[in-house]
């Protein structure tokens, strides 16, 4: 991360204090009252020490943020900061970390009371990406008003790292609400998987905590999930058809993508294996976990330039979920669950 220079801003209290200090100084000069000089000297000392100590607080302070692997739009992200004070003797007090996105200050501030010399502490901040896509990680402002709240000194910590923000995930209730009868009947007989262990992998969002492998989790310090052999796993294809650019409604587009992503996340909990097609083309899973691949594609999906010919993408009678921001009449008929423009409109 790139550190900028220190910047200073005088707080409102600081302005008032400086004005009072000047008033006392002028009164002292005017009257020759040495006690006023004494008071003036003390006020000036407060101002000088404010500047010196706030400078010292931010000096030799490094900040390294750690973001989670998966970040979803409209979902608060916990960002872990390693704050290291490289000073030999002086602690840093009263630090506030403020994320900045699109030049605006976010309201979620993280306050750190102290970082002792030669120590590192972990601070947790929160941020929320409003939309999906390839995003630059937020810059941060580390500021302090230590010790007296007269001067706000801050440091901009900029970043050039990028992250793919996955689409917003709807709750299972919202998904069920789209077509309760079909989804309910479809999913009720499909639950459960084999009990034969297959392997252990990292925990990802949506996994059930029932299958946590606690021994490995304790060893590695992060959640690990038991995978079981597939006994009678159903394969499901999700066909996502996006309206062309000319007629695309951005809100409906986002809802469609969110629904598709939500299905990608929730369906595996019921034991389904998923395939994803986007605008008629299957999405390639390339080396990463399939979920990340699919979610990345959906995160970066844009409406096609031209109208697409919509047809069934599979002939093997596999169950298909069709998600689209096109009207129902433009989409293939049953047997498939179709979430079309008309259904999307009802989603809040």
């Amino acid at each position: 991360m790139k550190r900028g220079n220190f910047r200073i801003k005088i707080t409102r209290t600081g302005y008032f204090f400086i004005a009072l200090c000047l008033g006392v100084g002028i009164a002292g000069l005017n009257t020759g009252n040495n006690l006023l000089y004494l008071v003036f000297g003390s006020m000036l000392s407060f101002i000088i020490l404010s500047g010196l100590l706030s400078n010292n607080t931010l000096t030799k302070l490094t900040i390294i943020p750690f973001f989670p692997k998966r970040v979803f739009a409209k979902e608060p992200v916990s960002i872990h900061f390693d704050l290291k004070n490289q000073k030999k003797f002086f602690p840093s007090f009263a630090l506030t970390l403020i994320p900045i996105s699109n030049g605006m200050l976010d309201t979620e501030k993280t306050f750190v009371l102290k970082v002792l010399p030669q120590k590192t502490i972990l601070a947790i901040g929160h941020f929320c990406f409003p939309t999906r896509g390839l995003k630059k990680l937020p810059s941060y402002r580390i500021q302090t008003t230590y010790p007296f709240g007269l001067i706000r000194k801050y440091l901009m910590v900029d970043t050039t790292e990028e992250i793919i923000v996955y689409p917003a995930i709807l709750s299972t209730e919202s998904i069920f609400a789209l077509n309760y009868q079909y989804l309910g009947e479809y999913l009720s007989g499909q639950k459960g998987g084999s009990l034969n262990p297959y392997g252990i992998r990292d925990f990802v969002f949506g996994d059930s905590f029932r299958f946590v492998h606690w021994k490995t989790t304790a060893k590695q310090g992060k959640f690990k999930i038991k995978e079981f052999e597939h006994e009678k796993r159903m394969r499901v294809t999700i066909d996502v058809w996006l309206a062309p650019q000319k007629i695309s409604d951005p809100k409906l587009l986002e809802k469609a993508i969110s629904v598709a992503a939500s299905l990608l996340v929730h369906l595996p909990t019921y034991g389904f294996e998923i395939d994803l097609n986007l605008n008629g083309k299957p999405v390639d899973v390339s080396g990463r976990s399939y979920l990340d691949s699919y979610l990345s594609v959906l995160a970066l999906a844009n409406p096609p330039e031209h109208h697409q010919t919509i047809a069934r993408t599979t002939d093997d009678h596999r169950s298909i979920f069709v998600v689209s921001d096109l009207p129902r009449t433009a989409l293939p008929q049953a047997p498939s669950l179709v979430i079309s423009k008309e259904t999307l409109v009802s989603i809040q």
Partner: protein
Amino acid sequence: MKFEQYFKLSSSFLIFTGLYSILITGSYIGPTLLGIIITGIHALLWDRLPSILPIPKWVWNTLAVLLFSYLFYDSFFGALDLVGNGIHFVVYLQAVKLLSPKTNRDWIQIYALSFLHLLASTVISSDITFALPFLVYIVLATWTLTLFNIKIGLEESLAPQKRGSMIRNLLRSKELITSRFLAVTSLLSILVIVFTMIIFFSFPRLSMGQFLRRVEARQKISGFSEQVELGTIGTIKTSDTIAMRVELTPEAIAKIDIEHLYWRGTATDFFDGRKWSQSEPDRQRIRLDPEAAILDTNQSRFPGGQHFEYNVFLEALSTPILIGADRLMRVTWEKPFVERIFRGVLSLERNDVYQSFHFVNSQNFVHDLTYRAESMTGQPDLKQLRGETDDYPFHIRSYYLQLPPLEPDVKKLLREIKLPESSVYDRAMAIQQFLESNYSYTLDVKDIGVKDPLSFFLVEKKQGHCEYFSTALVIALRFFGIPARNVVGFRGGELNPYGRYIAVRQSDAHSWTEVFFPRSGWIRFDPSPLDHTVWAPQKRFKVFFQLIDYLRLRWNKYVIEYDLRAQASIIERMGKHLSKITKDKKFYQTDEKDSSPSSLQKFPQFIFWSIIVGVAILFLILRTFHHRQNRRSFDGFYYRVLKLLSKNGYKKDSHQTAREFTHSIEAKIGILPSLTSLTSMYYEERFGRKRHPLPTWQRHIFTLQKDLSKSKKTSPRN
């Protein structure tokens, strides 16, 4: 201890200290005590107080308006005490704030109001008693502001909906304030005090003072005016308040008999049987030379007299008179005093008839006075005095032989005194000895309601204090045709070993006699025995009181009286020390002629402004250097690229990566190889830890500049 408790304690004590600083001056006791009581109640009940005492805001506001109106009227048309009324109003405002529910903004206002209390105390009094609350206030302010700042930081970091309960939990935490935090904050308080002292002593003093501070007379010594009523000095002698301090050199202290040192104020000649007054009270205004600031008293010198110099620090008296030891020969003043004379705030008048000098305050302001004096002690030799005749000038006989109506008993008593025929001096001494032998000293005269106090003393009681002795001697001398007058002042004093000065108290107030001799002038006679009883009760704490008084003197000298001359003198002394080290005496050596204030005045100002300018230049250099350091790093170069592009109308959004930004420009004006190269170099250095030499950066930036100007020229106009 919990954070909340620290915060409560420091805030409450801060408020209390502000009020205490006024209370300790002895003025406006009522409102400050009320303020302290409310602060105490608030400290005990804290947040519960507004619910226990739920007074609506409109009630407070109405009371505030009424009180303000009354105080405003009183300040300008009534008692005219603007400061006092201001204090009343500030105490009221603070009480309202404490008794009402508070936000952070209210706390800031409460602290500001307590600061106003401290400011008010600087106007009311300049005594050393200000020092302790001031120091305590600095320490508490450091603590309070630091804790308050942390409290605000904690609150702001929490989402609004979570603030209530989480804040309460945080404030009750014991882990927020650790021993390290305590140590750092304590060190911070010490630093503030150190910086305050540095600024105080180095900040230049300018002789601007348009409005002088108002100090009410703290002592009412009425015995030193043109009228002295019998019994007045006796009353004054019951107080041990210090009237003046006299600094002497160790040599002077060694050769002078302090117990028998007389500090002369003024004389009176007319006695009506009860009161002494001056027949010729008219005075002439003294014109002082602003450069010399010297007053010569034109007193006659005599061989064998002891000459010595001393500094007088006179406390604020209700009737300020210039007081000097024995025969005052010369007085020299510091320039600020002379300036006061020239501004018309103070004037100096002399009465040569009684050899007295009076400070007259035209605007009813009374100040502490400091001056340097030269005096001569001792008497002309006996041979000369015994050789004196009774050939008195007319005006001496007119004024100094006046007698009031005397009781027959008094006359009878006086006639019984056996006087030698040898000389006038011996006759005067005989009368003095008569009084010394037959009368004893007491402060408890009990002459209230007595018709003739002199007769009461001489015939009935045969006991009295110095006024009675002196009056009796004057009347007796005049009865026998010897001109004499009554003098008031001080006798003796107490040597303070810490400061090498004599502390002269009100209990040292004294009255004695001056007898006129044609050649020798006015010679002192004192029939009163010495009295050591007044200071006795405090002998147990003598050392403590002496130390406190020494500190008070130092406080007056180095804080209250600290001025441009003192600064110049410090600089001069520093310069002399430096010259000893560098052996370069030329610059610092001052001639006798050059030691006038005007040549030294400019020096500290020059040093001060040199320091300011030097610091400013250093700051600019460091800032530029820091910028240049930054510019040499790849971040710095990329920053220059962005600036260059921005100047040409291509501004990078904060959410764009470097590559995205480059693509967006290329989409508009086509590919710029220099920009592509710079972006790649940036990424390579940023992520790939590859270093590109400085000339490479500079070359590409230069090329980019050319490319951008080219593309500007070739781009089609809309």
